[in-house]
């Protein structure tokens, strides 16, 4: 049996498959289908200091090989997460990543501080939600912005800190370098790509927010490319996500330089996708004589 364990920023995940933020809630729903302990970890629904109602519907629509969403960070607030969700979630035998979003530096810091004395394993700093004007993306599209918010949160956050990057930038590796220099322990990429669809009969955008974030298999090649470019530049671990729906996709992402992967939209197609990917990854390693994940990470042989 190949060794699927991976250590990211001092946190040991039993396997490299993490449920991506926004696709897995706080674990309760899919926890009815399989023990959450089967997963390496869960990145929880994006959480803000105060609760948010989210965007008006429609919030989702299918697109070729993917989907658009503009949920708008609907969440019950960080206190509710700590009081109502975390006591249960932290007993499920998987690593818990709190995904933190906000509109001001102060909000991010206040929420991060509240998480310091909780059993979460890691904070994922969400500065890349494209669907809320004040959802943090204003910090995520310039290197200066990334550095500023990361530095501020780093100062107050006692947990390992991973910064989730937006692909809606000129050079994502510059954002990763900025996060690294500001003290991030890891980066995760990519968040969704901003997209739009229009109903040609009504001439209305299908998503009520007009634009939404594109995810699913359609974005995999973009994610692979961005992870590859980023992993060559930073020393901190890169967690790769964006369109992974099969074990082969996961292997590609590892070869591109990701130390672990997140699975999101594929869960909507198949709720068991994370387990299928984990098992397929183990089978691939067995079949090709790879004994540990580190033999795959960054193992692409570019021309």
């Amino acid at each position, binding site marked *: 049996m190949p060794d699927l364990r991976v250590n990211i920023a001092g946190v040991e995940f039993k396997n490299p498959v993490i449920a991506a933020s*926004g*696709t*897995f*809630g706080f674990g309760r*729903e*899919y926890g*009815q*289908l399989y023990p959450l302990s089967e997963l390496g970890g869960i990145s929880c*629904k994006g959480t803000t200091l105060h609760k948010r*109602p*989210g*965007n*008006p*519907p*429609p*919030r*989702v*629509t*299918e*697109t070729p*090989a*993917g*989907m658009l*969403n503009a*949920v708008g960070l*609907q969440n019950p607030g960080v206190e509710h997460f700590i009081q109502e969700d975390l006591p249960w979630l932290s007993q499920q035998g998987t690593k818990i990543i709190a995904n933190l979003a906000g509109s001001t530096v102060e909000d991010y810091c206040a929420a991060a501080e509240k998480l310091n004395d909780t059993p979460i394993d890691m904070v994922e700093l969400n500065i890349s939600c494209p669907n809320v004007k004040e959802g943090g993306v204003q910090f995520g599209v310039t290197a200066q912005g990334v550095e500023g918010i990361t530095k501020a949160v780093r100062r107050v956050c006692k947990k390992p800190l991973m910064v989730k990057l937006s692909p809606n930038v000129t050079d994502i590796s510059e954002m990763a370098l900025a996060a690294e220099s500001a003290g991030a322990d890891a980066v995760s990429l990519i968040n969704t790509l901003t997209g739009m669809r229009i109903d040609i009969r009504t001439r209305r955008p*299908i998503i009520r927010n007009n634009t939404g974030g594109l995810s*699913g*298999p359609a974005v995999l090649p973009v994610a692979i490319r961005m992870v590859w470019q980023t992993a060559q530049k930073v020393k901190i671990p890169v967690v790769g996500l964006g369109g992974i729906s099969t074990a082969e996709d996961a292997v590609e992402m590892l070869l591109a330089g990701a130390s672990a992967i997140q699975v999101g*939209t594929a*869960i*909507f*197609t*198949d*709720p*068991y996708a994370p387990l299928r990917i984990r098992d397929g990854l183990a089978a691939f390693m067995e079949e090709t004589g790879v004994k540990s994940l580190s033999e795959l990470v960054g193992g692409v042989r570019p021309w």
Partner: protein
Amino acid sequence: MKPFDSQLCKIVSAKALTADVFDFRVSAPQLAEQASPGQFAQILVPGHTLRRPISICGIDKARGQLRFVFQVRGQGTRELAAFRAGDSLEILAPLGKGFPLDTSKKTLLLGGGIGVPPLLGAAAALGEQAVAVLGFRSQGAVILEEDFRRTGARVLVATDDGSYGFQGLVTDLAAGESFQVLMACGPGPMLKGAKSLAQAKGAEGYLSLEQRMACGVGACLGCAVALLDEDGQEYYGHVCKDGPVFPMEQVKEEL
């Protein structure tokens, strides 16, 4: 036992009811065992990222079957309609909250178009306590009339153009009925009329809603619907988990 699950289910029979409405029975003993009227399924159409939410039309626990009657609305449902008996479909079910059924109460079932199928399960459970008032565009679009009659329910049919049954709205056709509970599924304006009718009669009312959906289980928060809490404050609930059937007082949405 899992309250819902995704399983590969063999299609037992597949037929067309009209040019664009299809009737599938699938073998799904475990899913059928746990299903109740008004719930729905997320059906995977191979090659598509998002599953199609389809209401459960019939539950046959003895045979271990679920029945789905769905309309072709776009590319996904068009591909779904091409499946045949003997093929298999990946089905996530049963999902959501169905109709709260009380056989001691006279119940009006109000269905419009493709909103008719999810009410059949309720009619089967209520039998003679149910009056089903079903509306369609025209005679060619009428579906499931005989199925409703077989449940023991009294059945009235309306068409928009008067080519079959009563000409006009189901709410007009049902206006003379006396009932304690109303359950409705159909287009927005019909649901609005249903709510007014239930209020006028002092009856309880339940509306089955639809919305563009992704996960189907309450994890992604995609299928938002504006609801009112007990204090009348507006908030976004979700069709997949809080519904698809909602007490009418909760529904804030401009239907």
